[in-house]
Structures are given as structure tokens and as C-alpha cells.
């Protein structure tokens, strides 16, 4: 009896529940399944067609992705002859892990977070910067020219978006005079959300987020008609699923982050959200989901940029914009504008 109690306690302790169940792996899987379904359905609607339909028809084929996942699981895993086997097989797993990992640092309510640190605003982007390195490695280890080019493109893109993203985050740190996400979300309880306070930072961060997760129009790393599917060309089966999942996982993590920093987090804390420390997380999740929906909808609107244009946009326009957002934040502080 004690053992079961112990295991239940362990499961519901924040250090386990957060990374594994909510908002970690389990929630992530469900969200990925649903968001890809939405992505395909939205694109299909714009394109005058149905999209996934026949796998569980009453709900419009919503379990299509589960079917795909099962198919991925049973597909043969092929390792190309010239590939560096260890790197080839390990890097997708590490890539996926690092794409999901930052989720532990995102608090979903003031009393509910796995990592109780004052620096969570920095931990999330810092953990995310590790992921692209493994894209480079897996592109390199595949022994395929297209994978190699794709990996290089990811490397270049990383240079373009990360600076912007960090500077935008910095601007928010200045705006709120805090590095703790719990603080930041708390300071938005007056209804003045980050996106209103510092729209420049929000915009710069959003575009950088599109770049990070290779959403259209910044689909340059995957660019099917140019380099097949970029770094993931040689992957098959569940490893391919992991690679694709990694980019959606990043999208999920960044959307949660965006929701906390710019969209007021769990505010307004209305009934029934205040009943349980986990429930405010649902509000964050819903906001993040809307952000994700917006991101994936862009697929049906845009073609993709060329790599040099994406880089130029990153360095010339977005960086300037994010620096401007820091200035804006300083001005706000300088004017004695007290946040929260």
C-alpha cells in the first residue's frame, strides 16, 4: 500500500508530472496530433478540399496522425551505408529530447512549476539553442548531399533567429525587470499583457519563433522541392517521426513561452481556473494552442523564402526590430512606468 502511495506521490510530484504528463510528453503528443490535424485541415479548407477524413470519420479524421505514428513505428529503419551510424541513430533522439526539455522550465501557474528558479526566462531559450546543433550533426552524419545542405541551412538559420530571439527576450526582461517567468506572468495580471507593453519584442520573437520551428515562410531547412526534406532525407520510420516531431515540440514549447511572456500567462485568473494549481495551466495551453494554430495556418498562405532572404530578414530587419524593442523597454522604464 505504501509502495502504491509512494508511486502515486512520485507521479504527481511536480518533478515527474510536469515533464511526463502535463505539460510534458503526454500532453505534447496529444497536442502534436491535434495541431498537425488542424494544420492539414486548415490548409485543406483554404485549398477547397477535405484533408484527412477517413480515419475516424465522425470527427473528421482526427486520429489520422495516430495512424501515421503507428505506421512510422512499424516502418523499416534504414541506415545508409556511408552514414556515421552512432551519430545517425543518436542525434534524432537527443534532438527530440532537447526540443521538449525546456517545457520543464515553463511555469503554468504561480504555484506549479518543476524548475523553481528565478532565471526561467533565460533557461528556456538556452535549452532550445542546443537542439539545432543536433540537426547539424544528423545532417552531416547522413552522408547525403541534400542532408548536408539542409544541416548547413539549419546552422545558418540558427545564427539568424537566435540573436533576435534573445534580444527580444532581453527586452521583456527589462520591461518586467525580472528574469522569472512566474514573476512575469504575475505582473500581467493587471490586463497589460506583454504584447501590448512591447509589441516590437512580441513581433520579433514571433517571427524568430517561425524561423526556429521551420514554419512557412521560413521552411528553408526542409524545402522539399529544393533539398528533398533537408537534414531528414535519409531517415525512415520512427526516427523520421522523431525529427518531424522535434520541430512541432519546439513550436509547442515556444508557444507556451510566448503565451506566458506576451499573452498574460494564466491571467485573467477567473473561476474555475483558481480551484486547483494545475488548472491555470489549461488557460496557458489554450493560448499557446491558438498561437500554434496561427503559425501552422501560415502554411496555406505563404511560399517559402530563399535562405539568403531569410537570413537577411533575420539580421537586417528583425535584429534591428528587437534592438528597438529593448530601447522601447528602456524608455518605458525611464518614464517611470511601473509594470505590475
Amino acid at each position, binding site marked *: 500500500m505504501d509502495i502504491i502511495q509512494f508511486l502515486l506521490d512520485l507521479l504527481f510530484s511536480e518533478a515527474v508530472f510536469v515533464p511526463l504528463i502535463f505539460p510534458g510528453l503526454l500532453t505534447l503528443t496529444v497536442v502534436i496530433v491535434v495541431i498537425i490535424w488542424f494544420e492539414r485541415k486548415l490548409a485543406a479548407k483554404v485549398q477547397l478540399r477535405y484533408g484527412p477524413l477517413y480515419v475516424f470519420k465522425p470527427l473528421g479524421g482526427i486520429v489520422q496522425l495516430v495512424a501515421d505514428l503507428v505506421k512510422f513505428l512499424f516502418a523499416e529503419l534504414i541506415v545508409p551505408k556511408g552514414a556515421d551510424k552512432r551519430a545517425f541513430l543518436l542525434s534524432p533522439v537527443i534532438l527530440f529530447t532537447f526540443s521538449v526539455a525546456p517545457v520543464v522550465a515553463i511555469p503554468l501557474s504561480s504555484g506549479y512549476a518543476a524548475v523553481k528558479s528565478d532565471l526561467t526566462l533565460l533557461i528556456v531559450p538556452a535549452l532550445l539553442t542546443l537542439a539545432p546543433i543536433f540537426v547539424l550533426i544528423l545532417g552531416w552524419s547522413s552522408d547525403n548531399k541534400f542532408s548536408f545542405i539542409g544541416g548547413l541551412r539549419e546552422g545558418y538559420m540558427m545564427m539568424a533567429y537566435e540573436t533576435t530571439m534573445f534580444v527580444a527576450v532581453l527586452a521583456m526582461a527589462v520591461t518586467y525587470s525580472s528574469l522569472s517567468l512566474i514573476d512575469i506572468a504575475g505582473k500581467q495580471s493587471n490586463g497589460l499583457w506583454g504584447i501590448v507593453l512591447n509589441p516590437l519584442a512580441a513581433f520579433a520573437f514571433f517571427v524568430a519563433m517561425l524561423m526556429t520551428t521551420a514554419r512557412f515562410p521560413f521552411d528553408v531547412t526542409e524545402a522539399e522541392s529544393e533539398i528533398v526534406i533537408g537534414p531528414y532525407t535519409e531517415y525512415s520510420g520512427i526516427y523520421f517521426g522523431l525529427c518531424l516531431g522535434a520541430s512541432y515540440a519546439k513550436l509547442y514549447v515556444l508557444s507556451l513561452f510566448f503565451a506566458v511572456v506576451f499573452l498574460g500567462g494564466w491571467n485573467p485568473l477567473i473561476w474555475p481556473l483558481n480551484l486547483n494549481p494545475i488548472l491555470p495551466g489549461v488557460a496557458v495551453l489554450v493560448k499557446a494552442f491558438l498561437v500554434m494554430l496561427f503559425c501552422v495556418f501560415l502554411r496555406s498562405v505563404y*511560399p517559402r523564402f530563399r535562405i539568403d532572404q531569410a537570413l537577411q530578414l533575420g539580421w537586417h530587419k528583425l535584429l534591428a526590430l528587437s534592438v528597438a524593442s529593448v530601447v522601447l523597454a528602456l524608455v518605458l522604464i525611464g518614464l517611470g512606468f511601473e509594470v505590475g
Partner: protein
Amino acid sequence: MSEERFLELLIGPQHPGSGHMKITAEMDGDIIVGFEPNIGYVHRAVEKIAETKTYMQIIPLVERPALPDTANHNLGYTLALEKLLGIEAPPRAQYLRTLLAEINRIHSHLYGIGIHGIFIGSSTMFMWAFADREPWMELAQQLTGARLTYSYMIPGGVRRNLPEGFKDNALKATRYMERRLKDYDKLFVHNPVTVARLRDVGILKKNLAARIGVVGPTLRASGISYDVRKIEPYCAYPHLDFDVVVREEGDSHARLLVRVEEILQSIRIIRQVLDEVPDGPVFLESYIKLLSPKIREEAEKTQIMRFPATFAALKPPKGEATSRVEAARGEVFYYIVSDGSPQPYRFRMVTPSFRNVVAFKYALLGRRLADIPAVYGSLDYFPPEADR
């Protein structure tokens, strides 16, 4: 050491952006320094097969290389054959040929725009263009009884008369298309990302375009107003009022815009044809006379023309004939040598895509890897058409 500076990239023939073609691209970083298209992966020896077929049997054969644009290929062949036979189709048939040729041009341009869209990543443009081919295929189906491989134009006329209610349907389709083109413009053609991707990419200057002999929208986007419909008018084109769409820029975006504007011109032509189409027979009287009275009466009733028995083995007199028509992708050129037998002695077909292959080499040098699909789509290159 200097060779090791370059990366040799083999694109295709199994590549989502290559079509049935092997491209050997020599890359200096992201810059293309050498580009060699290797075609022939879908070569079906149309010219050789034609030498074993009778003249009527060649009609479906010439349609096969360019399925999105069958009517124009069929028309070019039929004109050459009529020259050999020394006959000319009645005026109403000429108008109906023009009608189908323009419906097919719209259809083919939509196909080209759609492929261009997916090549630079816009799946919506791809799906839209392919969806909007549907009304045009339906129109063509009402006219000819087939959605794609019409085999509609035969020596001496066309196979079917205009069906009931066709004009009404066609006018609806033209109005629909005009409205949709505005949405194309907003979502794709002048989408800032599209413009960034295509403008100043793959430039063919005016004199270069003429020198390397590209044809069709590719040529006209480089500022040369060459359109066979104006240079050597055939069918009803001398009586119709339309403009040759010319742009000066010569880049990929100009080629896309020429295609879009040509759809508008085709719509204009279709409206004129529907208004002005003269009454009268759609098949040569001298052929109709060869039919048995019962069949003739039935053809009169159903308005579906019937072939005289001589069509099974048409024997044009000894001689040669050439014809050129403006198909959607450019000029199709036929050269037929007859030795008086039921099969041509030599059959020559030069398709627009084959003449546009050369443009790859000139348009892409010094550009980036990502420009390959952008330029490929803008040339509307169709490998089966080039390989024949």
C-alpha cells in the same frame, strides 16, 4: 585542388523538384556555377512510332507528349495534315478549334502556375490552380466528350458541334476565372514572399532569349512579341481581337505574370468566339458526302460528326508540309514528309519545352540552389513534352 572547391549535386530524376530529368549542378557554396540538364527519361519516340501509324492514328499520338495541352498539339498536327491533303475546314469548325485551343491554354497555364506554386512552397496555389482546371476540363468535356485527351480536331473540321447551353456555361466559367485570378494575385502572384523569390531571378535578356531560341511565355516575358497567333494567324485568330502579352523584365516573375495575363486574354478570345461563331457545317462537306445516308442523318441529328471510311487510310499526295501553332507553352512545330502512302515517311514534332530546356543553362548560372525550382516552375518546363 581547385576542383574540390565545387560540390557536384545530382538532382533527379527521382527528386521532388526535378521532374523526369537529371540535373547536374556544380555548386560553389550556394551558387550554381555549372548546370547541365539531362533529359530523355520519358522519351517515347513519337517520331518513330508515327512512321508506323496512319495519319488519323497520329492524332492521339501527338496529344500524348503534352497532356495538359492536348488541343494545341492536335491542332498543329491537323493544320499540317490539311496542308498536305489540300483541304481547309469550314469557318465554324475554325472557330470551334480556336475555342478549344483557348480553353486548353487556360487549363495548361493553370497547370503551370500550380506547379510553379508548389515548387516555391505554396501548396495553396498548387491546389487552387488544379481545382480551377476542373471547370475548364468540364467545359472541354461537354464539347468533346473527354476531359483531357480530346482528339477533337480532325482533318476537315472538328468532331462535334457546340452542345446545348455551352455558351452559358462557358461565360459562367470565364467570370468565375476572372474573379479567382484576383485572389491568385493577392495570395500568390503578388504575395511579398513570391515577389521576393521570383523578381530578378533567372533573367533572360531580350537578345539572349532570341539567340537561344526559347519560345512561348518565356520568350514574351523577355520583351519579344512573338506569338504565332499574330505572326502567322491560323483558324479564327485573324478575325479575333486580342493582345500579345509582353513584359520587359525577363525574370521568373515576369514569366509568371505573362501566364496570368494570357489567361485573361484567352478569356477575352473565348467570349469573342462564343459571340461570333458563324453557323454552318463543322465538318467538310466533301467528307460528309462519303457517309451512308443513314449515318449522315444520324450525325445531323446528334451533331456528332462521323468519319468516312477513307479516314482509316488517308493518303495525302507526295510532298511536305510544315505548320506552327502557338501552344500554351510556346510554339509547336510540325514537319511532315509524305510519300503518298497511308503512313508519313517522316514525321517531325518540335515541342516548346524541348526548345526551352536550353534556358535552364543560361537562366540559372550564378544563381542560388533555391532558385532552381523557382526558375524551373517559371519556364513551365514539362519533361514528357520535351522528350516526346
